[in-house]
């Protein structure tokens, strides 16, 4: 009969033990897993991006129930183990059931610390530990509401940043003089604080919390100096305490944590422990890297490799706040024998400090430029003598070798094999290089899948990429100087377009033949791109290939996660009427459309329409004069406007009419990526024109034209293209701009990265300074659009592509 293994704690450390065990001794144990949380395993460190709205809970689930089932692990979620009967070798669960074990692994994590101030138990005081906490925070969050975060360490700052991203007014109160004082020195702490404040966080340091006040619910925080900070939500993030509850209850040796020896065995030979709950050589950890090292040893022990030992970990820290680069490792407190090397670049906000003792690195803090973190951490861990490169250490290895500008690829190439690339998953350079060679890996995604490097917090993605470059050399160099469209070809986007022109290629099959595509008919990456390039090159001639379009563009609606569609009619310049609204309301009633939502683009979204209903819905909308809004397309989306001089007391021009005219002039065009525009009536800019692909801001003397803004994953203000005097000029310049983008932007490249690639000066030259070129671009635009300004909904409502909207057959059992 198989030995019975019970795991208590379905968290990051516990599950890593199971993974390691699968590699060493699959099937050796009959495994039961008890987890107090109701979920399968998720990546706890990614709770911060979930809180900030950058990720969804589903994205961070690392092991779903199917994984447990496949591997024969019996998973009991929502079941807490209350005690362990060590004599009978049985665990006792919260539902009273008992289960016997031969080996027991405790991986119970830690408890968030609640400082014992009055009011700590008021509703609205939340810790930051699990997804339930995040849900509770989100329920209390909301724009315009106020939060106080107690604790300015890693966790507190990530919580504060997340709540700020949710639109809250956030104050961090921190006991010490600098934030993240355990990881950062004063200088880096200052830079970090300055950046957080610039983003809108209020930070109060040396703040001692006296109490949390409120009537039945949190109302605010009072400090010892008498200050009161009102709050609708208080997040307590002052630290963690190892969860040694079970150990204490059952008489295992405990101190702050559950004490283990180097084999990760507790004072009871049958019981091992792993993760944040343990205390090893007097040390407890609160980061995943050491837990993963422990998990290897636990798995070794369970697999019978009893000589395997854990000897403690040196840790490094990174802050996961998008756009802020902070790295810290080792110690840098006041030690009179230690020497400092410091580099500062005030203008760029860069600070680097390396602490040496006896010519060896004992600590480092990097702010603003953390590219060298891995190399320095490696030197720190290996305790190498660095006296030879002392003078140039802080500038990175390339400069140390006498080169001019530091080359990041060389820097990675210079790393030794045991240098750690992915801190979260403990993957070193050697393992990645080996996998690249042995498995023929080509992309970061490949490396992620096969080695787990960069699969957790993702902050080492850049390193992995450079490692690929340095390992593959020529092979990758080629691919990187010209990134291929996809795996079906070695040609890049620009090359393909040049060859289409040079060889007069007129269809996708012809192109694939002539350019020696390596797949029979491409893939879902290249076919949409090729279809667009041909469409752009041969307007009116090329026959659009529906099968090379993503479903949204094929069926002129946006697919939703449940397979239904959303329908967004055009609302010219964001202006509507009673008749249009009535028609929309009628359609909603008639087809029982579940959700009607106002979009961020000044129009109305009908969500949850069944595919078969689409033609009828469109026909009814058409009857009221409503046409497709192309919300689904790499095409002109919206032209937002403000009320402008018609109504607004500040308006300088009729921005609404200008927006409508622009939308009428440009709708229906296909572009490399979606295009959004806006027109504001004065520099107060209520239509947010300066974060649009093409934005117009009216001023007394005319119209400013702005290009290359974005407000998506990357926020970028526009560059000013030029100023013009009249509405017809606005339209001419806009069309010329769109045409240049259509002809030279790469597929799926928004205008802003294209502009960053070619430079705004180039756009000015082609569109502003050279009137001839502008007119030609404008003419080509008009020509192209003359073929596509047809309402695709009307065509389909009239029966085009009918096969899309009806089943082939229905069979009944």
């Amino acid at each position, binding site marked *: 009969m198989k030995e019975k293994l019970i795991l208590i704690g379905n968290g990051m450390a516990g599950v890593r033990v199971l993974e390691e065990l699968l590699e060493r001794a699959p099937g050796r144990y009959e495994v039961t897993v008890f987890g107090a949380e109701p979920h399968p395993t998720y990546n706890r460190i990614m709770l911060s991006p979930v809180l900030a709205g950058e990720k969804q809970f589903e994205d961070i689930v690392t092991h779903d129930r199917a994984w447990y089932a496949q591997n024969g692990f019996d998973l009991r979620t929502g079941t807490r183990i209350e005690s362990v009967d060590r004599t009978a070798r049985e665990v006792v669960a919260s539902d009273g059931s008992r289960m016997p074990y031969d080996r027991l692994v405790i991986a119970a994590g830690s408890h968030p610390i609640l400082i014992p101030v009055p009011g700590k138990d008021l509703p609205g005081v939340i810790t930051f530990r699990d997804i339930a906490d995040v849900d509770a925070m989100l329920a209390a969050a909301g724009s315009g509401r106020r939060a106080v975060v107690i604790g300015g360490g890693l966790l507190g700052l990530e919580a504060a940043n997340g709540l700020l991203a949710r639109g809250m007014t956030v104050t961090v109160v921190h006991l010490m003089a600098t934030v993240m004082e355990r990881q950062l020195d004063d200088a880096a702490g200052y830079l970090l604080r300055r950046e957080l404040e610039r983003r809108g966080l209020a930070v109060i340091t040396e703040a001692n919390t006296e109490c949390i006040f409120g009537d039945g619910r949190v109302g605010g925080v009072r400090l010892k100096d008498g200050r009161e900070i009102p709050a609708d939500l208080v997040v307590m993030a002052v630290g963690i305490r190892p969860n040694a509850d079970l150990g204490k209850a059952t008489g295992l040796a405990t101190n702050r944590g559950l004490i283990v020896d180097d084999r990760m065995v507790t004072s009871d030979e049958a019981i091992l422990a792993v993760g944040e709950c343990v205390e090893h050589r007097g040390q407890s950890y609160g980061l995943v890297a050491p837990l993963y090292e422990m998990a290897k040893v636990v798995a070794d022990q369970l697999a019978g490799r009893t000589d395997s030992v854990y000897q403690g970990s040196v840790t490094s820290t990174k802050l996961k706040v998008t756009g802020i680069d902070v790295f810290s490792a080792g110690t840098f407190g006041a030690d009179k024998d230690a020497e400092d090397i410091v580099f500062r670049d005030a203008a760029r906000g860069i600070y680097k400090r390396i602490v040496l003792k006896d010519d060896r690195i004992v600590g480092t803090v990097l702010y603003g430029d953390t590219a060298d973190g891995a190399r320095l951490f490696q030197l720190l861990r290996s305790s190498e003598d660095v006296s030879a490169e002392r003078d140039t250490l802080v500038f990175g290895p390339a400069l140390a070798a006498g080169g001019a500008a530091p080359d990041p690829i060389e820097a990675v190439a210079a790393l030794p094999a045991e240098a750690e690339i992915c801190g979260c998953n403990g993957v070193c350079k050697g393992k990645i290089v080996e996998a690249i060679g042995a498995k023929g890996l080509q992309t970061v995604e490949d490396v992620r899948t096969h080695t787990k490097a960069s699969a957790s917090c993702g902050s080492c993605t850049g390193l992995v990429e450079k490692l690929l470059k340095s390992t593959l050399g020529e092979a990758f160099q080629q691919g990187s100087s010209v990134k291929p469209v996809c795996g079906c070809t070695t040609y890049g986007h620009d090359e393909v377009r040049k060859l289409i022109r040079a060889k007069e290629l007129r269809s996708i099959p012809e192109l694939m033949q002539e350019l020696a595509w390596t797949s029979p*008919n491409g893939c*879902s990456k290249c076919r949409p791109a090729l279809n667009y390039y041909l469409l752009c090159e041969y307007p009116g001639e090329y026959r659009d290939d529906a*099968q*090379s379009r993503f479903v949204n563009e094929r069926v002129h609606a946006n697919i939703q996660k449940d397979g239904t569609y959303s329908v967004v009619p055009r609302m010219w310049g964001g202006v509507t009427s009673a008749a249009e609204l009535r028609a929309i309301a009628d359609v909603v009633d008639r087809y029982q459309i579940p959700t009607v939502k106002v979009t961020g683009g000044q129009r109305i979204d009908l969500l949850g329409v069944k595919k078969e209903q689409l033609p009828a819905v469109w026909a009814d909308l058409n009857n009221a004069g409503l046409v497709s809004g192309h919300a689904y397309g790499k095409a002109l989306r919206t032209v937002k406007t403000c009320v402008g001089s018609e109504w607004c007391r500040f308006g300088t021009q009729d921005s609404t009419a200008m927006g409508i005219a622009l939308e009428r002039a440009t709708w229906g065009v296909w572009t490399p990526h979606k295009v959004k525009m806006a027109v504001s009536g004065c520099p107060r800019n209520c239509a947010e024109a300066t974060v649009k692909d093409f934005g117009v801001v009216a001023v007394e003397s005319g119209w400013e034209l702005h290009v290359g803004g974005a407000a998506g994953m990357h926020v970028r203000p526009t560059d000013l293209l030029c100023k013009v005097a009249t509405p017809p000029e606005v339209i001419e310049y806009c069309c010329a701009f769109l045409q240049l983008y259509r002809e030279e932007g790469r597929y799926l490249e928004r205008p802003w990265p294209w502009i960053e690639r070619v430079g705004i000066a180039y756009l000015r030259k082609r569109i502003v300074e050279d009137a001839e070129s502008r007119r030609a671009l404008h003419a080509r635009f008009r020509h192209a659009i003359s073929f596509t300004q047809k309402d695709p909904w009307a065509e389909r409502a009239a029966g085009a592509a009918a096969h899309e909207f009806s089943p082939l057959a229905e069979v009944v059992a």
Partner: protein
Amino acid sequence: MKIDWIDVGDVDDIPIMGARVVRSADGDIAVFRTADNSIFALYDRCPHKGGPLSEGIVHGRSVTCPLHNWVICLETGEVEGPDHGCAAQISVSIDGGRIRLGLPRASRAAHG
């Protein structure tokens, strides 16, 4: 289990490198036609999160799911590349341009 061969339509009813749906009591079935005119049928549910495979881009003998771009092999129903999973397959026979699906139990065509 007894298999009934049910006529669901003509090969030409499906666009080349496209798919159509057959509604059945067991859920939708996606019937694909590849560039070389082979026909394959899978239940119209992506092994990832149930995305409608019939709406994906068909290339070679694979389809890319429209929701999160998993690539599914039409010949086996297996997920290609690093992801794992399998979409349930249905046998197909072609006779004189007519497509017949091999469905368990007695089934009958309602309309084509």
